[in-house]
């Protein structure tokens, strides 16, 4: 039972920031703090834009964990061995835990989880579009763990040093677990690749379908001209990245991280005997990195659109669970409210006169 609520670590660290009584205007103090590489804490003054960017990023990350449970969760009942079933349950459970840490980190910025979930359900906030793809076979669970969690680790490792303290602390924990998921995913793929020809074909098929979502959607839009399709979008992406980097929210461009991901995956795929579905992948001696096909911004925009079957399906699944569980949450809230008010819980139960005497409510 490891469901330590995320906030415990994040919100508990609430001592005033070192700059609180320092000289100068709040903005100067904030910028000095970030420039010194120190953590911004919930009670520190911060620019509205920083707060909004932080809420947006943490919420999107939290939503991605929760929505990301679905494609793998769909295979829990079909895992082909009890060992793999246990591993997958543990992984999906970790994702729920990450969602909790992250919503709690967002709550330190003055929003609450219910609001954020409503925004997700109403389509005002999004989860990563990576998960708007279906998990069609068992091999998809391994591919998701190996490739999309692998992408997540590369994305998230620098976030362990991001400027907002509660987010950075949540990420340290998340990253450790994600790194483990990547290894489990690779191990699952290795078993398939060493299995029957049909198993290996299933693995290759899954990689064919998940490579592009991982390489494109996990890292965000291109933000350098080399990585993007045209100069205008690259400039736009670069502006957003620059601001996030100035505030210490991000530490690398999207394209830099994307390149790191490809560098990590190519030799792994070779060891597995799988082909990554990009004929342009080849070692560039001069750069010391792999070349690959730049992400097509139009493809990216299309995939982001909500009007796809799976984008709708993910939200519909989430919303159905939320609505069907409303009476449970109301009951828990009513029970907690009475307990907090110090009322004996039975007092509220109509006509209850003691154990086993409440037939009229049955």
């Amino acid at each position, binding site marked *: *039972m*490891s*469901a330590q609520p995320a906030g415990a670590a994040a919100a508990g660290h609430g001592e005033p920031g070192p700059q609180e009584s320092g000289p100068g205007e709040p903005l100067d103090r904030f910028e000095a703090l970030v420039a010194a590489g120190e953590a911004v804490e919930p009670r520190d003054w911060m620019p509205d834009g920083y707060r909004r960017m932080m809420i947006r990023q943490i919420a999107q990350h939290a939503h991605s964990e*929760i929505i990301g*449970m*679905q494609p793998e*969760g769909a*295979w*829990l*009942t*079909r895992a*082909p*061995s*009890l*060992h*793999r*079933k*246990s591993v997958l*349950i*543990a992984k*999906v*459970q970790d994702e*729920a835990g990450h*969602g*909790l840490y992250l919503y709690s980190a967002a709550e330190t910025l003055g929003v609450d989880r219910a609001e954020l979930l409503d925004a997700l359900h109403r389509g005002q906030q999004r989860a990563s579009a990576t998960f708007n793809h279906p998990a069609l076979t*068992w091999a998809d669970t391994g591919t998701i763990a190996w490739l999309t969690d692998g992408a997540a680790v590369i994305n998230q490792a620098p976030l362990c040093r991001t400027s907002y303290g509660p987010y950075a602390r949540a990420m340290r924990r998340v990253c450790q677990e994600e790194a483990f998921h990547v290894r489990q995913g690779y191990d699952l793929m290795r*078993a398939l690749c060493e*299995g*029957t020809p*049909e*198993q290996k074909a*299933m693995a290759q098929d899954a990689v064919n379908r998940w490579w592009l979502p991982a390489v494109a959607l996990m890292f965000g839009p291109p933000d350098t001209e080399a990585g993007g399709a045209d100069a205008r979008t690259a400039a736009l992406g670069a502006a957003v990245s620059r601001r996030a980097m100035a505030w210490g929210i991000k530490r690398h461009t999207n394209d830099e991280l994307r390149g790191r991901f490809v560098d990590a995956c190519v030799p792994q795929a070779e060891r597995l005997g799988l082909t990554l579905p990009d004929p342009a992948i080849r070692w560039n001696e001069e750069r010391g990195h792999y070349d690959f096909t730049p992400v097509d911004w139009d493809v990216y925009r299309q995939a982001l659109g909500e009007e796809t079957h799976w984008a709708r399906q993910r939200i519909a*699944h*989430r919303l*159905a*669970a939320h609505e*069907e*569980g*409303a*009476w*449970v*949450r*109301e*009951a*828990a809230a*009513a*029970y907690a409210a*009475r307990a907090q008010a110090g009322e004996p*819980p*039975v007092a509220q*139960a109509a006509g*209850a006169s*003691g*154990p*086993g*005497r*409440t*037939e009229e*409510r*049955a």
Partner: protein
Amino acid sequence: MTTTTDPAPRAEGGVRVDVHLAVHLLRLGDDALVLGQRLCQWITRAPDIEEDLALSNIALDLIGHARTLLTLSGRIDGTERSEDDLAFTRSDREFTNALLTELPNGDFAATVARQLVYTHYAALYYEALGGCADPELAAFGQRAAKEVAFHRLHADTWTERLGLGTPESARRMQRGLVRVWPYAAELFDEDEVLRPLVAAGTVPSPASVRPLWERRTAEVVGRCGLTVPTPRWQARGGRAGLHSEEFASLVAELQSVHRQFPGGTW
């Protein structure tokens, strides 16, 4: 290969063969496997994220119990079948779980009611198993009892919140209890397989933990403003492989990938 219960003879290589004990452990393992499978169906559909987490945690423990029990069963029945052989290659008619564990999830209250019945039974039975003479079984019983104590706490807590929450939750919780209570009796049944094992002191008697199970569940149900149902019938058949119609699809789903790839390694 000899078939007996006690004293336990050792086959070639020191492996004890005891067909009755193997059947009993298979039943316990099937209970855990099938209930774990049902709980997996909740994940991503729970009333809140904390419950997705709690139910997956419980499912994970149950699959862990199933793995140990099926492995032991396959070893001591002399067939050398692995946990996966037993989980993924038997037909639904060969599963021996109690009917309680395969009941469809229903609403959250029905699931809590099913958990209440099972966890109070499993906590008592595993605790008793923890004191048996066989060191391997005793070690398993002790570990499983500790884990099930948390599952029981989870069931008790939700029975209380729902029983004493809102009129709607109380109505649903009572309906859940009424639905599952007829399925409790089968957990405590002793038949020609179990009686000799119990008589020889190889394993504890399920029937002997029933009075305490009744007292404890009645205490929880009563304190939550609910009524202990008094069913006029009791469901039986799971131990003999006679399951519900829905069970065939549960097993088909469980085994679908494994069966789709003959000779596959995972």
